[in-house]
Structure formats: C-alpha cells, structure tokens
C-alpha cells in the first residue's frame, strides 16, 4: 500500500512536471486579467538564427515600450503585453509543435513565422481555428494570408520582384541568367511571373538554374554563363550561397552585373565574401531597418538606438517588421475594443496605415488608406540597394 501511494505520488509529480513542461515560458499566467499574451514563433536557434533572433528581440522591445507607455487600453482598462516566445528552428515540424504549444496555453495572437517552409505548415491549422489571429512578419512565400485571421506585414516575393523589374528597366539590361534556391517557396513560385515581367521589358532570360542550401559548387553552371555573355546574373536565395556564387562567378570570368534578391545582413555577407568582391552588387528587397537608419528616419534611428542599448549589437534586417507587428496588434486590439479574435480580425482588416504612427516600415497604403489588402497582405515593395564599402545602401538608379 505504501508502495502504491508512493507510486501514485511519483506519477502525480511526473504528470505535473510534464504538464508544466509543455507550457511556454510564463504561460501559467496567460489568463491573468490584466495582460494580453502574444505568441511569437521564430527560429531562435538553428540555421536561420541570424534572421530569427533579431526579429524576436524586436518584438520584445516593442512590447516593453508599449507596456512602459501604459500598455493596451481596452474599455478604459490598461493591459500589459506579454510575449510567449517559441523557437521553430526554421523547421516545419518544430514550428507546428510550437504553435500547438501556444494554442494549448490559450495564446490566441501569433506573430511569425520567418521561414518559408514553416508558414505553409502552420497555415491550415490557423485557418481552421477561429480562436487564432496570425500576423506573419517573415516569410515572403505567396498565398500565405487569407485576410480573415491570417495577415502579413512582410512583402511577398512578388513585392521583391518589383525592385528587380525597376532595376532592369532603369539600367536597360538585355539579358539575365537566374539562379534560384529551389527550396525557397516564395522565389520558386514567383519566378515564372518575374521572367514574364522581364520579357515585357525586352529582357531575354538566357538560363534558369536551381540550387539548394548547402550547395558548394556552381562552376558548371557559371561556366555556361560565360559562354552566354549575359548582362546580369540574378541570384535568388540566401546570403551564404549568394556570396559563394558571386565569388565563383567572378573567378570564372563573369564580368556582368551581379544582382541579389535576398535578405542579407552585411555581417553575414562579410563572413562569406570579402567586401571588395561585393562592391557594386545590387540587392532587390524592401528597405531594411538599416536602410531606414541610413535614410535618417527618426523612428528607425530610435529603434536602432534602443536595440543597441539593450542587446549590445545592431538590429537585424527584419527587426523593424517584427517591431511593427506588435504595434499593429496593439492598434487592432484598441480598435476592436475587445480581445475576441473575430473582433480583432475585423479591426485588423480595417486598420489604416495612419492609425499606427509608430510603424517604422513605410508600407504603401491601399487606395482607401488601409494597411492590409482584402487578402490580408500589406503593400511593401522592393527597393534597389547597392553594396558600397562594408554594407548596403539605397541605390540611385540614375548612376
């Protein structure tokens, strides 16, 4: 009997430990009356940490600033925002587990994910759950939003392509060779349209080649480029491979213009290629946190300063988007006057860019001034940057 009791006690303790272990950090207080929990799913560890961690930190920073300024006001009552962080390691299975963990802790508002592989895995779960509202601040894959309970304040791959088309139009390039990461859903899905848009400008697509993360030898493809004499080598993917392709192309004698289409923090770029070899390379993505700082944007400078003060390093390229996401949620809560998901979704869809003066990123308002189109997507267009010295800077296309 004694053994049985002690066995039951052990089971109870184990059960408690396991039960608590499945809750996100601090989720035990999720139902506290005066706080709103926002879950965030980003790669805090794993191969995409250098994107995900600055996003997560941007969210923390925004929540702290909102809380210090009095929090979220609903019906005359103030609520503090609490962030429940989950690490998806940029892996779909880990991402789904992270979402389920947040859902089981009754977290109903989600920011993220970053990875184009994770977002499609989360989408069907979130679409079916009317107690969830998602704001994507990372992936650029097309068709990830629905305008009902899934919104996105990041650009789409098609939004990136706007800058590519602008660059080709301004510089009158006549031919292009594309090298695309074949596992990047956003780039793969938009490639056909991009090629068609370029064709409309009279640009010939000389070749379309594909690679994957971790590939190291591109010599065969790049040798063929030399034979084709193309004006532009367009690389669409991630910076480690981008740097390697750029280096190998130069070594094999490619003398045309190299154009990147990828989020590529200078610190990461410089770990993979000397600055001199990057000089003059164009990049076609929406303006990043660093770009806004370089343009002298006061809100971006304040964010940059606060970030450096707290984390002892500069913000990441996507930090401003994640920072904005918290303010977008705050505005939606206050506009809805409730934490009911249906009301928040409706308010989110109706938000105007002018309703959120704290936004760092310069979103193009919809014709009626709203932030999101009816499909839940913001209008955020790529701009052309050029590598000068040790980093990217906004490019003047009249050079």
């Amino acid at each position, binding site marked *: 009997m004694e053994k049985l009791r002690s066995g039951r006690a052990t089971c109870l303790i184990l059960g408690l430990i396991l039960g608590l272990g499945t809750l996100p950090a601090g989720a035990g207080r999720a139902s506290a009356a005066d706080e709103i929990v926002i879950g965030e799913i980003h790669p805090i*560890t*794993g*191969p995409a*940490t*250098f994107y995900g961690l600055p996003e997560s930190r941007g969210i923390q920073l925004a929540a702290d600033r909102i809380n210090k300024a009095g929090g979220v006001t609903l019906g005359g009552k103030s609520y503090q925002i609490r962030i429940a962080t989950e690490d998806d390691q940029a892996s779909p299975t880990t991402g789904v587990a992270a979402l389920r963990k947040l859902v089981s802790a009754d977290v109903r508002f989600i920011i993220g994910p970053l990875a184009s592989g994770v977002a499609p895995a989360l989408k069907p779960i979130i679409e079916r759950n009317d107690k969830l509202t998602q704001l994507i601040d990372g992936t650029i894959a097309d068709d990830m939003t629905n305008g009902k309970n899934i919104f996105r304040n990041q650009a789409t791959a098609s939004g990136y392509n706007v800058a590519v088309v602008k660059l080709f139009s301004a510089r009158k390039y006549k031919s292009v060779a594309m090298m695309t990461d*074949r596992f990047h859903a956003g780039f793969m899905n938009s490639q056909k349209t991009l090629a068609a848009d370029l064709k409309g400008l009279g640009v010939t697509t000389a070749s379309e*080649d*594909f*690679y994957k993360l*971790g590939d*190291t*030898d*591109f*010599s*065969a*493809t790049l*040798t*063929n480029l*030399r*034979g084709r004499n193309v004006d532009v080598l367009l690389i669409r993917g991630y*910076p*480690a*491979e981008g*740097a*390697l392709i750029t280096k190998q192309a130069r*070594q*094999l*004698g490619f003398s045309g213009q190299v154009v990147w289409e990828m989020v590529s923090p200078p610190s*990461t770029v410089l*770990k*993979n*290629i*000397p600055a001199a070899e990057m000089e003059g390379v164009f990049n076609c993505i929406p303006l990043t946190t660093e770009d806004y700082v370089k343009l002298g944007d006061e809100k971006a400078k304040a964010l940059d300063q606060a970030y450096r003060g707290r984390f002892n390093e500069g913000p990441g390229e996507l930090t401003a988007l994640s920072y904005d996401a918290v303010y977008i949620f705050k505005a939606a809560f206050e506009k809805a006057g409730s934490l009911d998901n249906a009301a928040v979704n409706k308010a989110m869809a109706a938000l105007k860019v002018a309703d959120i003066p704290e936004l760092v990123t310069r979103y193009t308002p919809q014709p009626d001034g709203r932030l999101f189109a009816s499909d839940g997507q913001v209008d955020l267009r790529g701009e052309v940057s050029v590598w000068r010295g040790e980093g990217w800077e906004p490019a003047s296309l009249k050079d």
Partner: protein
Amino acid sequence: MLELLPQQLANGLALGSTYALVAMGLTLIFGVLLIPNFAHGEFYMLGAFITYALVASGLNFWLAMAAAVVLVTGIGWIVDRVVFQPIGSAPGHSAAQGSGLSMMISALAGSIILQQVATIIWGTEARTIPAPMTGVIQTPYFTITALQLTVIGTLTAAWIAVWLVLHRSRLGLAIRATSQNRDAALLMGISMTQVRLATFGIGAALGAVAGALLGATFPIYPSMGVTPVLKAFVVLVIGGIGSLPGAIAGGLVLGMVEVMVAGYGASQFQDIGTFVILVAVLLIRPQGLFGRAQVER
C-alpha cells in the same frame, strides 16, 4: 558548348579533388578498422572551424591549419576511444559484428554530438575562412584558382605521404596486415592499439586538412560535414572500399560526372548524377573500380 569543355573538365578536376580529399581519410579508417565513420564529416568540420578560429585570432593560415590538424588528430583518438572501441570490445561483438549496425549507430551518435558541440561554440551562421591565396590562373583553355590548384596539390601530396607510411614503414606494414586479416595480424603480435591510433590519427588528420582548405573556399557551419561524408561514401563505393587510389579515382570520377551533368544537362540533376553512377557501379562492378572481389565462405 564544346568550346567550354576544357573549363568544365578543370571544374570537374577541382571538384573531384575536394571529394577525394575528404574520402581518403574515410576509406583508410573503413578499410583497416571496418568502421563506417560518419563522424569523419565532423573531423572535416572541426578542421575548418579550428582553422577559422585561429585565423580570426590572427594566426597565419598555414600555421592555423597545422594546429587544426594536430587538434583534430587528438579529437579523432578520443572519438575512437569513446565512441567505437567500447562497441568493438563489447561482449557478443566480434570485430565483424562490431563494424555493423551498432558501429554505424555509434558513429552517427558521435557525429551528432560533435555537431552540437560546434553549434554551441560557433553558432549556426555560415562563414568562410579568409583565403590564404586569391589568385586566378588563366590559360587559353580554362581558368582555375590558386586555391583549387592547392587542393589538387595537397591531394597528391597527401596520397604520396600516406602511401609512403603504408608501404615504407613497419607501422604501415602492420596497418596493411590488419586491413587484410585482423586475426592473423593479432597472432603475428601486431599491436592493435598502435594500428588504431595510427589509422584514426591519419584519417582524422586528412579530414582536418580537407576542412581547413575547403573552408577557405566553401561556407563553414556545424552541419557542413554531412553532405561531403555522404558523397565520400559514394566515392568509396565507386573507387573500391579501402583503396586509396580508389578514393582518388572515385572522387575524380564523381566530380567529373557532377560537373558534366550540371554543365551539359541541368543543374538540378547534379545530385541525381551522383546516385545514378553509384547504382551503375554497384550493378556493373560491385567491388568498385579498384576494389577486389571477395568470396564469402
């Protein structure tokens, strides 16, 4: 397209040399000790990261590479002692059994542990070792970088050095004897400890040399050894398991095939080419190009 053939051949030679350099250490350990050492990719990775860390702290690249080789050799011995020897000497495991499934699982465990340790120390962000030389040699027919030439030269030097050890020293004689018949070698009084230390030491050192040199060409990150070690196993099958000339020929064949498939076919079929040639070799000459057919009794 044929006018680009000399360049594509040079590309294939350069790529094949990288495969061969990784495969040499693997084939030595597998050929002598019958250990499918999946952790060899981590010797390669550690060679790259240690060189990177030392170069970043201001050390000359070649000195850093030498230090990395010494350190990784030591790590190789520790891996053998901790990961493989307990399995090989476990009750109920003969040498042959020990080289089977349990050895493979143990090797995978060792590989994952080393990757995780590297992740904790260096993080996951990809980086490249600053290249010790940056020149490009241009001929009328092809272009090749000085670093690629160095890899080809190092491969040749490593092969000659290992050949001299194996064929011109008593230790090499002991290693070859063990490779041919472990039980007979034991009966002849050959010290298995010495053979293991030498084999693992040379194998790990070759992995470190490959990591240091290729880390100056390719991005390095904790899981960077996974694909090269898989390709190295393909090289072993093509060249003949346990054969050093086979590792070199297999690496070069694989490099050439990949480049030709990507150059004259499509880049997305590059990996398919690897495994098509693997299946073809297994069907036509299962013992590999330089392997000897063995009769199971």
